[in-house]
């Protein structure tokens, strides 16, 4: 038996080692968790660095269950970054919520491993275990504040809908296996179209969409999203809103362009319909929210709607550059959404009891803590898609690719919905700058420590991607060109 190709999974190995070390060290720590935080951060950093260093490789490993290529590596770096920022903003928040356990960091690392595997998998079994590893960690993280009803509820809702949805995916995968006798994407891809089962393949596609759609919260599989974001610890919600979504899309991209290539006409139309539905649901519901955590949840659903429009275009052909645009959008979305949640985390840290995320509690923030207000404004601008920010670049490329796919009407709808989205993002800004607070909340401390680092990283990311988009676009091009490698 050959020695397995460890190099190809080195980033994950590092993360696994870091996670296990965290679990080992944790029992020896009392109040001060600096050691495990440092371990987790170093692990993530090392895995990202290794992923960057491995760049240029392009090979399959572990009997073709996973690959090592720039597509997988791009996502590995992205997931590590998302987790890195999430972890940076966690310590103060967890302390303020009186539940600071080292296991938290281990779970996030394990979830990242799951995501890495999802992006690198070229085999349904590997994909499935990656998905479940991520999901398992997510369920627990959602219910991490076990003394809080809301956190319990979030875990319950996530768990019940999650296992339900993943059962559907599993059924779909089993059918694909039945059609072709293999779980390897590449072999399936070359065989599935020739089995002459258009209906059967479309059926399997629909079932897989149900499960993956749940992960990326596309309507109508989105129902859990606002409740779970609201009930889960804010830092976890921040991580959820970017990590599993990006992982879900990384898997969707690869699965739908290889395995379900033969049913691309079907899923292109399906994603068109779901895209409109998702954008509609997200924006309509976001507008009536008074809780900003929920508002961000619904707005993230709207963003998924944009991404689905890109997927619909991808179904029209690879030359639409939709895949690249989706990758770029995910990167942009990661930094801006994490930043917005970072500010929420900061505010909650300031007022563990008083702050309830309501629109009113943002009144007068512009004077109370101008930095938080300015940074939040930046992130909201980016989410709206104002030029100069990452969000604009993402939307620009994404809608351009939609237009290239001859779906001008869908691009117009997308632009329309992002115009509407300005309304609910702006409302928050109006409260921050133009409203007097009803009850004066005090500022205990400025943004500092790791939280400041997290927010600064996100802000830098938003501006960097907004001002120098060429860099990320080149990487997205490179990543997607290597998708099948």
């Amino acid at each position, binding site marked *: *038996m050959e020695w*397995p190709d460890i190099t190809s*999974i080195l980033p994950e190995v590092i993360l*696994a080692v870091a*996670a*296990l070390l965290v*679990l080992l060290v944790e029992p020896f720590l009392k109040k001060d968790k600096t050691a495990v935080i440092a371990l987790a951060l170093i692990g993530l950093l090392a895995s990202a660095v290794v992923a960057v260093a491995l760049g240029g490789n392009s090979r399959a*490993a*572990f*009997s073709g*269950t*996973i690959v090592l290529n720039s597509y997988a590596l791009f996502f590995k770096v992205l997931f590590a970054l998302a987790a890195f920022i999430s972890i940076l903003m966690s310590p103060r928040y967890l302390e303020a*919520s*009186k*539940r600071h*356990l080292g*296991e938290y960091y*281990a*779970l996030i690392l*394990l*979830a990242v*491993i*799951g995501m890495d*595997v999802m992006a690198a998998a070229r085999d349904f*079994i*590997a994909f*499935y*275990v*990656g998905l479940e*590893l991520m999901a*398992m*960690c997510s369920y*627990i993280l959602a219910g991490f*504040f*076990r*003394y*809080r*009803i*809301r*956190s319990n509820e979030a875990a319950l809702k996530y768990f019940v809908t999650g296992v339900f949805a993943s059962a559907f995916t599993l059924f779909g995968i089993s*059918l694909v296996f039945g*059609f072709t*006798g*293999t779980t390897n994407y590449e072999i399936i891809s070359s*065989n599935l179209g020739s*089995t002459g*089962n258009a*209906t*059967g393949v479309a*059926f399997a596609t629909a079932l897989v969409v149900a499960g993956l759609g749940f992960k990326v919260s596309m309507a109508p599989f989105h129902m859990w999203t606002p409740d779970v974001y*609201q*009930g*889960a*610890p*804010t830092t976890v919600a921040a991580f959820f809103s970017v990590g599993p979504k990006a992982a879900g899309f990384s898997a969707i991209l690869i699965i739908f362009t290889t395995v379900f290539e033969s049913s691309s006409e079907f899923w292109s139309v399906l994603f068109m319909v779901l895209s409109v539905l998702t954008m509609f649901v997200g924006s309509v519901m976001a507008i009536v929210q008074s*809780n900003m*955590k929920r508002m961000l949840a619904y707005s993230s659903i709207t963003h998924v709607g944009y991404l689905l429009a890109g997927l619909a275009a991808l179904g029209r052909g690879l030359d639409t550059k939709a895949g690249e645009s989706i990758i770029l959008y995910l990167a942009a979305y990661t930094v801006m959404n994490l930043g917005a949640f970072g500010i929420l985390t900061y505010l*909650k840290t300031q007022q563990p*009891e008083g702050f309830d*995320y309501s629109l009113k509690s943002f009144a007068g923030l512009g004077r109370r803590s101008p930095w938080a207000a300015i940074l939040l404004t930046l992130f909201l601008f980016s989410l709206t898609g104002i030029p100069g920010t990452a969000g604009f670049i993402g939307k620009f490329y994404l809608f351009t690719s939609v237009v290239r796919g001859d779906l001008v009407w869908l691009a117009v709808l997308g632009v329309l919905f992002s115009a509407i989205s300005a309304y609910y993002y702006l409302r928050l800004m109006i409260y921050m700058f133009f409203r007097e607070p009803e009850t004066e909340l005090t500022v205990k401390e400025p943004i500092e420590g790791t939280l400041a680092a997290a927010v600064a990283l996100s802000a830098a990311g938003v501006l960097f991607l907004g001002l120098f988009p060429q860099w990320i676009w080149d990487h997205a091009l490179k990543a997607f060109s290597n998708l099948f490698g």
Partner: protein
Amino acid sequence: MAEKILFIIFGVLAIGGALMTITRKNVIHGLIALVFTFINVAMIYLVTQAYFLAVAQILVYAGAILVLFTFVIMFLDLREFREMEQFYPWQKYLVAILAPIALAEFIAVVVTASWIPTQQGITPEMLAEIGGNTWGVGVSLFENMLLPFEVASLILVAAMVGAVIMARKETTPNVALRAWAPADGPQPGQLEQEV
């Protein structure tokens, strides 16, 4: 022929057990019905000559998982729930309509699809000659699915860690209303607050 008859018998029994599982008021009864279903499914594996899985099915499901369930049921003392309404007031009617439709759709698709065997050649007979089903599954697992195997171990680690932090009793003695929360944890008034 005998295979087919056995398949039908075990299949019908499995479906019966499944129906029992989702309709029993008493959780324990449902659990026993589920064990029954699982044993029948294991029998179907046997009929299919997947011997290792048949044993694993009984060990893992009927053994480990269901014992875990029983343990938690005993631990939590759920008798009081038996008196409560078990089904949703209006949703049950919707499901009663939807589920048959879904079943019809599923069966329509799977029956009309053309299933073409790819004949990869690893038949039970061949396996029996060169080392048996268990050997074959093991070799296949470690040759082809080594990475998923490792990841699966991490899933179990995550689940274990999760179960511990979600359910472990706090060591700090406390006098708070909720007997399981530590003294410095959130107080009863904070239970319903935004997190």
